[in-house]
């Protein structure tokens, strides 16, 4: 029997001793799946691109330097503006667990992920644009939103809700005993934040900031539409151009590697911000109860939550209003729409299921590995299961899609492969979200139960079902909801693999927009948002489980 933390650490133990913990095997399988997906795509492109490498070298020109500078600058600003307010919004939400409509706000916060960029952009412009609501009030003095400001508004719209929910998950892991202690010691809001909340938030910060940064660095449609011109271009656009117009795989791979390297450098820097928290190893005896906030704080929190809600709900309300103008009855009666809705829901559920399974494997592996080692020595495998998986996000879907297309074209039927590719790629792309949502809870639960399990010899499925499941239920639902929302809104993978047999809602939406049917497109956007919200509500309900 293995005693956590008491194992004498061996240098390079992974090499000499086979890992006995099934959790580690699970993680290795999940990592292998990711590596296969990305490696396969790169292999396909490199095999094709090796014939002509000139494009790879010519990628480095002065324009690229400008693109890189702008990409990093907008991503850094977007991250800062999303993550810092999210810390406080999450804290405010966690302080008021019975806030009216709290559950609904959180569910609503998942929906932006499912909205295709053009829908979100139109929603944002309905408020902030030249023909928007604010411009109508402010008149001529309303500044043009196109440019960096437009990009930032859109990125905060997408990422503030995401970061808020992830921070809230982290805050949920603060042991009830700590709250009781804080209450007994008569801690005020400031002291409680510093001593109780900040340590957990700080631990989650690098991961969440890294995730948001990756999403912003790869932003494509938003940057092009709201950026106001090619001065605002991201690397992702250059990659897309290399594959789409120039069909230059060598160049696309080079630029993708550059994008990964840049992100890696930033994420490495972010890690320094973080800290590891020592969770509570005891079973909580105190009932879950937060500090009661004073009237001033309650008012401030309410204002903060309202502001965040208005900011996020505004563009969504505009989307709903536009959607209600469509002939919804006719749309609902169309077989193409019904078929696309069904396809979207099935692909989304499958992708989310796969994503959560893979993510959980990685989280368990990471935890098992970190229990085995000395505090200072993190192995490469542990890093890979942690931040490594996140880098999936900076590999553009078009690269994965095109690479696999090239690789598989001789082996199989491309059309038949489409649904499989869509599910797999979306599942892997959603993993970083699911991991961030689930890891704090798993680690906290493990801190409490690890010794008990070791003493009683509970492991494998038994442990997962009997010990981990109750505390993982809710975060699993969150992770599932995120993964599903993300796959529901996917356009990158489906655009390449989609054929007439696999049409999803966003795909249909874009097709309608592409043939003058803007009202139909607005109606479909409403439908997509509603489907997403319904699924998120369902996932939440299933995850609620026992009363806490």
């Amino acid at each position: 029997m293995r005693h956590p933390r008491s194992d004498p650490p061996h240098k390079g133990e992974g090499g000499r001793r086979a890992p006995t913990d099934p959790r580690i095997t699970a993680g290795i399988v999940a990592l292998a799946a990711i590596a296969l997906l990305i490696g396969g795509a790169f292999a396909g492109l490199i095999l094709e691109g090796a014939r002509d490498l000139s494009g790879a070298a010519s990628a480095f020109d002065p324009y690229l330097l400008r693109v890189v500078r702008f990409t990093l600058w907008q991503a850094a600003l977007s991250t800062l503006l999303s993550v810092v307010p999210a810390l406080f919004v999450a804290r405010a939400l966690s302080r008021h667990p019975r806030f009216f409509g709290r559950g609904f706000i959180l569910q609503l916060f998942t929906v932006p992920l499912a909205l295709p960029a053009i829908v979100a952009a139109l929603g944002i412009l309905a408020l902030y644009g030249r023909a928007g609501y604010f411009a109508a009030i402010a008149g001529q003095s309303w500044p043009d939103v196109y440019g960096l400001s437009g990009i930032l508004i859109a990125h905060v719209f997408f990422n503030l809700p995401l970061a808020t929910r992830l921070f809230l998950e982290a805050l949920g892991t603060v042991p009830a005993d700590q709250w009781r202690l804080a209450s007994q010691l008569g801690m005020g809001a400031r002291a409680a934040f510093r001593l109780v909340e900040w340590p957990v938030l700080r631990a989650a910060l690098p991961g969440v900031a890294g995730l948001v940064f990756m999403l912003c660095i790869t932003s494509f449609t938003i940057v092009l539409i709201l950026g106001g011109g090619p001065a605002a271009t991201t690397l992702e656009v250059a990659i897309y151009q290399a594959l789409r117009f120039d069909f230059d795989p060598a160049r696309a791979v080079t630029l993708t590697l550059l994008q990964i390297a840049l992100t890696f450098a930033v994420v490495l820097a972010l890690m320094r911000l973080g800290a590891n928290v020592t969770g509570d190893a005891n079973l909580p005896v105190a009932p879950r109860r937060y500090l009661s906030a004073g009237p001033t704080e309650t008012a401030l929190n309410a204002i903060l939550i309202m502001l965040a809600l208005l900011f996020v709900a505004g563009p969504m309300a505009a989307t709903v209003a536009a959607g209600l103008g469509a002939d919804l009855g006719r749309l609902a009666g169309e077989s193409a729409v019904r078929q696309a809705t069904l396809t979207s829901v099935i692909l989304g559920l499958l992708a989310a299921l796969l994503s959560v399974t893979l993510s959980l494997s990685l989280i368990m592996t990471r935890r098992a590995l970190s229990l085995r080692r000395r505090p200072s020595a993190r192995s490469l495998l542990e890093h890979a299961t942690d931040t490594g998986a996140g880098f999936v996000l900076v590999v553009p879907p078009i690269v994965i899609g095109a690479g696999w297309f090239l690789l598989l074209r001789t082996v199989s039927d491309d059309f038949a492969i489409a649904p499989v590719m869509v599910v797999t790629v979306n599942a892997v792309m959603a993993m970083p979200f699911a991991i961030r949502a689930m890891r704090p809870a798993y680690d906290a639960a493990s801190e409490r139960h690890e010794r008990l399990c070791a003493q009683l010899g509970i492991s494998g499925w038994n442990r997962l079902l009997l010990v981990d499941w109750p505390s993982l239920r809710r975060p699993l639902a969150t992770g599932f909801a995120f993964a599903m929302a993300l796959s529901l809104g996917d356009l990158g993978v489906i655009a390449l693999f989609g054929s007439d047999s696999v049409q999803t809602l966003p795909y249909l939406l874009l097709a309608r927009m592409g043939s003058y049917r803007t009202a139909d497109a607005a109606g479909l956007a409403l439908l997509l948002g509603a489907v997403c919200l319904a699924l998120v509500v369902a996932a939440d309900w299933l995850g609620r489980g026992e009363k806490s």
Partner: protein
Amino acid sequence: MRMFLSRLVPALGVAVSILTSPASAQDKLTVYTYESFTAEWGPGPLVKKEFEAECGCSVDFVSVADGVALLNRVKLEGASTKADIVLGLDTNLTAEAKASGLFVPHGPVAENNVPGGWSDDVFVPYDYGYFAVVYDTEKLKNPPKSLKDLVEGDATDKIVIQDPRTSTPGLGLLLWVKSVYGDKAPEAWAKLKPKVLTVTPGWSEAYGLFTKGEAPMVLSYTTSPAYHIVAENTERYQAASFEEGEYLQIEVAGITTTGAKNPLAAKFLAFMTGPKFQNVIPETNWMFPAGKTDKPLNPAFDRLVKPAKTLLFSPEEVAANRKAWVDEWLEVMSK
């Protein structure tokens, strides 16, 4: 792992394809095209019905986002492509398509009436249209009368254009400006730049912004107003007529090396240039038919802008210069 996956993936794929595609033993023609062609309101369903009745075969459409994606898809698939026919490339892509070696010369087809008499041994035109600046009559009382007007006009009247790196109309405007201004194109772009509200990745986004009222002008087609007149019964959106002329876009189809083995492919091209196909085009694809139709076009089409001059670079010129011209554009627009 790899072995397992390489078996599992095709197996799953086959399972899915059995579920999704009706099996047919009869002769089959596979046509790759773009989405709006096969959509239920597009020409696809009618074309399929007409041709299937004529040939006693079945037609399978496979659609991707647009012409560029179409060429990429065929290139990605290479010689193993399932496409017999690729329908929906424009003349800016044909040189590149020919260079791929995936297309074969076509058989006899009916004569086309494309302005300037475009003809080619491999690709056959099925429709054409002109790029145009479409404006909102409620927002813009004095639309520009020439490209020069647009370039030098009041910077408060904004236009939404598309990125030539990612979209066909975007490339169209680039070529339009080039054909009017020649070497002076960079200066023209520098003057136009303050009037450009934003540059979108594709036509849909630009047209969406335009109809939402974000800008009074958008780069689109001379035929766009016909859609609003026929389908929405409104004359609010009109195309501006430019003294220098309008740039032409010709949409073509060709037979692939796969299609060379399928006798139906040549039959389809002959059918495509005939009236049964051409009748369908105007009010489903919102372009001008490239061949004879049985009936005159809807009167809405007569009210459209008639270009003073047709501008067009040859496919070879575009293929040879596209990269340099796009870089030139980028240099000015990204400052």
